[in-house]
């Protein structure tokens, strides 16, 4: 009787399909948990989505669109152009250096409220010195691979 009951829990894993065995179980658990979350929170879900939409559209809340989307756009451009430039200067780290100088300066400028002449000088110096120092220490002294 006991062995009959235990045989219900028998499992055979086909080696050719073994890569899907555990992911299928995890996916099902994930789907069930997601369903529970949606069922238990559906009343808050729609108003929450509407609120998020209004915040992202700038009609509500304290969301700094310029700085948030500016950070995303600059970071994406930084990564993309670094990849493009690394084909021009392969294995030198120059792509990292050039793009980092531009990125650090532009992102700092994005985050500053009221740029004064003194602040401009600080931002330019920071954008020139910090990436150059990082490039020199990491790529030249430590021989770490840079784009």
């Amino acid at each position, binding site marked *: 009787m006991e062995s009959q009951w235990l045989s219900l829990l028998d499992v055979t894993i086909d080696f050719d399909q073994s890569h899907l065995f555990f992911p299928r179980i995890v996916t099902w658990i994930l789907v069930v948990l997601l369903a529970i979350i949606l069922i238990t929170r559906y009343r808050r879900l729609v108003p929450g989505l509407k609120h*998020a939409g209004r915040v992202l559209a700038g009609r509500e809340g304290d969301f700094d669109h310029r700085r948030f989307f500016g*950070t995303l756009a600059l970071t994406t451009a930084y990564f993309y152009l670094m990849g493009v430039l690394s084909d021009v200067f392969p294995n030198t780290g120059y792509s990292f250096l050039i793009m980092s100088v531009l990125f650090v300066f532009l992102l700092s400028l994005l985050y500053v409220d009221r740029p004064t002449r003194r602040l401009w000088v600080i*931002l330019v110096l920071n954008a020139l010195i910090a990436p150059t120092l990082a490039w020199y220490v990491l790529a030249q002294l430590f021989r770490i691979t840079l784009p």
Partner: protein
Amino acid sequence: MDILSHLTPMFFALIAAGTAIGIIFGAIPGMTATMAVAVCLPLTYAFGLENGIALLLGLYVGGISGGMVPAVLINIPGTPSSITTTFDGYPMAKRGEGERALKIGIVASVFGGLFSAAVLFFFAPLLADFAIKFSYVEKFLIILLALTVIASLCSNMLMGVFSGVLGVWLSLIGTYSITEGGNGEPRLMFDFMQYYLIDGFSLLPVLIGIFGLTTVLLDAEKGFRDETGQGPISLKNGAKFRFGVFKGQLTNLIRSSSIGTFVGILPGVGGSAASVLAYSQEKNFSRDSSQMGKGAPQGIVSSESSNNALTGGALVPLLSLGIPGDSTTAILIGAFTLQGIQVGPLFIGNNLDTWYLMIIALLAANVLMFGIMYFAIRHIARVIEVPKYILYPLIIMMCVVGAYAINYGIMFDVWTLLIFGVFGWVAHKIGLETVPLIIGFILGKSAEVYFVKSLESYGNYSIFFTKSPIAVCLWVLIAVSLAFAIYLRVRSRRQAAVES
């Protein structure tokens, strides 16, 4: 003694440098020890095993300790674990005792750190010796227990469980590794992704994205407003610090350090839980707690000794079981792997020299943290004035280095950093829990191997319940952790109902 040959001036200089950088990161609100380790990872690529460990452990200890500076001076915890330091530190600073409050915190921190290093030294080998006997079944159950404990202690248990499972799911993207006994077939991705994701997402770019870029995006969204509304308080006036303030505090120190160490051993619970627990215990058990919350040194002692005791505690499951105790040790596990260290039950026995070096590095980091912070606290306090428009672009730049260099120059790892930076921001917005997610991500692949191999060997699901008395004990612990979490929730709801 071969170990003595590794104790070079460079070894100690790197511990000091790591500790100092960690303190600076910890002292800047919003930046944590985890971020310090993530951002400084590229520096360790150039070093050997011993020096890499020295830098990493220095960063870890320094990062946790530095959090007290803004907690005392501007009432904002530099790291989540310093939350209770604000309760008494800030009132002391307001009445002109800022330097005294910080020095009390520094002494308590070094006590907690050394206490937990001692526990690590004596307890981790015992746990590792015990864990060596584990088969795949028990190893899988240990991972299940870790994820259950983490999820059950989240603010929302359901979201905690979901986040942990999502982390496991993300870790399974890629091929089922042949070296782990798999069939080398890809899964959970479209064909066009196979070129990039054949080995799945690399661990460290994922972690750097979630802990580095996400933090920048969250602050960018707020527009970098000054949250304090006032400048930092001056340290120069008020009562002087004397060691006599610790008279009668030994019980508090030992109790809080024990709590911190124990909480650190529990996977993923986090420093804020340790300090809150230690603070509330001091409030409950001390002879006179009437001044706590109004600027009592005992509050700072309990908070800071407990959060620094986390450091050694969190390394116990990492080094003996291969399970990270908190988010910082989650990054350490990746950094150690890069250095060729496979943490787990066999680590200590097979790498005795490395193990002793780690203990020495941890002790030295605590002592150096004390030296740096105690004598240079006035200069360190100025760190909180460094503007984020200078820091954050540099942090993203260093994140790029860390992600790109991890696999010796793969641009997709940099995109992974961006993907998971944005994912971390979205996760924060929809209430996903980051810590279970990353612990699930780290342990997911191992869980798969242990689960599938157990079933391939025994051919029946019941083996997970019947394999050994240890397996039964682990199921009991899983049930207890779930029951305890449910009990805490029911109790807090009842309390809320009574109060309303």
